[in-house]
């Protein structure tokens, strides 16, 4: 059974102010198997976040259905972990309390929460920062806390919305490596939103290239490149060339449509 199943998803945003409807997602079907690492790749505004938010349960599809682990999604819940573009940490809680926030909600005692958090703090390499507050962390460290927090749910599915977009190149590479290691260890399913072709190719087992608005799946590409991925290898670059061509065509069609209209 697939971990995530999107069936004929259409999403229309009602724009009450301008009295116009905006078709954000048009008839998208995707099936993500267990332990897959799916990257959603597309230009800005093509509906990547919208798609992810429907899996998360923040948005409901106008048409179609979303199931996670065979159950229809009817709202946010702890069976899916989410890592946001901005880390979204509770600024009034120290790092370890942020990581263990879920256990706080479950009413665990402080000592137990503290012990449980440590495993995940170690996993993302934040030893020594347990008692720091979010305002005292760098962007990359905050993002790690967000990842640790999602991992502690021990979810089957982790959703990530451009989590590394705000990081510098070096930190980004380190974090990507760590994420792949964690994914291999935890054997979870990841849906990862990005607009970087390189990032999608370094991380994914599959890449779904989306068209610009309204978002459709232009092509679903399976990647069986060996890990760690070598971004200078000929096969990597074949994939990259292919995807860049898709994106270029897409842009061309877009411009022609605008010109014809």
């Amino acid at each position: 059974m697939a971990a995530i199943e999107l069936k004929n998803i259409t999403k229309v945003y009602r724009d009450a102010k301008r009295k116009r409807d905006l078709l954000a997602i048009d008839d998208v079907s995707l099936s993500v198997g267990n332990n897959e690492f799916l990257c959603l790749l597309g230009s800005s505004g093509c509906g990547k976040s919208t798609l992810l938010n429907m899996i998360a349960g923040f948005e409901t599809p106008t048409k179609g259905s979303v199931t996670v682990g065979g159950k229809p999604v009817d709202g946010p819940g702890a069976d899916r972990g989410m890592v946001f573009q901005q880390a979204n940490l509770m600024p009034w809680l120290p790092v370890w309390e942020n990581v263990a926030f879920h256990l706080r909600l479950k009413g665990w005692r402080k000592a137990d929460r503290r012990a449980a958090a440590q495993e995940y703090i170690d996993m993302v390499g934040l030893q020594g920062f347990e008692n720091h507050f979010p305002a005292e962390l760098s962007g990359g460290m905050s993002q790690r806390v967000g990842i640790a927090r999602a991992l502690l749910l021990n979810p089957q599915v982790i959703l990530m919305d451009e989590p590394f977009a705000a990081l510098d190149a070096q930190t980004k590479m380190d974090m990507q490596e760590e994420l792949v290691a964690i994914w291999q260890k935890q054997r979870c399913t990841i849906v990862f939103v990005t607009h970087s072709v390189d990032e999608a190719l370094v991380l994914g087992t599959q890449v779904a290239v989306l068209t610009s608005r309204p978002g459709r799946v232009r092509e679903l590409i399976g990647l069986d490149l060996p890990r760690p991925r070598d971004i200078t290898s000929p096969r990597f670059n074949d994939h990259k060339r292919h995807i860049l061509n898709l994106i270029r065509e897409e842009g061309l069609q877009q411009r022609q449509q605008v010109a014809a209209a």
Partner: protein
Amino acid sequence: MTALSKSWERAVVPLFILVAWEIVSRSGLFPVALLPPPSAVLHSWGDWVFGYDETTQANSGRWLADALSSATRVAAGYAIAAVSGVLLGIAIGWWRWVERTIEPTIQMLRPVPPVSWIPLAIIWFGIANKPAIFLVFLGAFFPILMNTIHGVKTADRNLIRAASMMGATEQQLLRHVVFPAALPSIFAGLRIGIGAAWMLTVTAEMVAVKSGLGYVLWDSYYFLRYDLVLAAMASIGLLGFATDGLIKLLMSAALHWQRASTLQSREG
């Protein structure tokens, strides 16, 4: 050394005012009875507190009792205002239907000066502590309420999303996300509220009660004891300053997490 010079900085302005006042007052520009010098005020104040030479007649040695009865009224009215203001503020900020049904009424009551409630308060509660407590409540309630509503409404929606992604129920969202997120605003309201509370207890004591610092102030005015009027004013100012300091202490303990990210973290 720096700590010493810092506390000096704080004392410079009050000291300057006191010295200038003493000089003007002794210069004979005004009758001494109308503008008693600080030294005379201090002398009467001392007698009011310790009762050493009965210069303050019936009030001699009664300061602690007066201060306590004012402070009790402030404490009672303020506590009611704080609890109800915060709870109602969270409800109005969070649930749209509460906002729609209650907010208009509250916004109409808010501009009515608390003092104008005095006649009704006296009819309802008689002449005793209750009307004073009611007025204190009115004065402190609205700033606390408005600031709480603001704090809830400006809570980061993404934090709420993050928490509901971790399985938080609505009640847990309110307790673990919305309330702490609104806390800086709530404390701003609490600090405005404590000032209003002192202002109103004195107003109430002038008309509705026969004890407390405000009562002494008004009573001394009838007897042309401006030294006592000033001593009462200073007492209220000091007590207000002290209670605000207490709330500030509470605030910095509760909001210590803000220290690294805000202006107040600057040295000194």
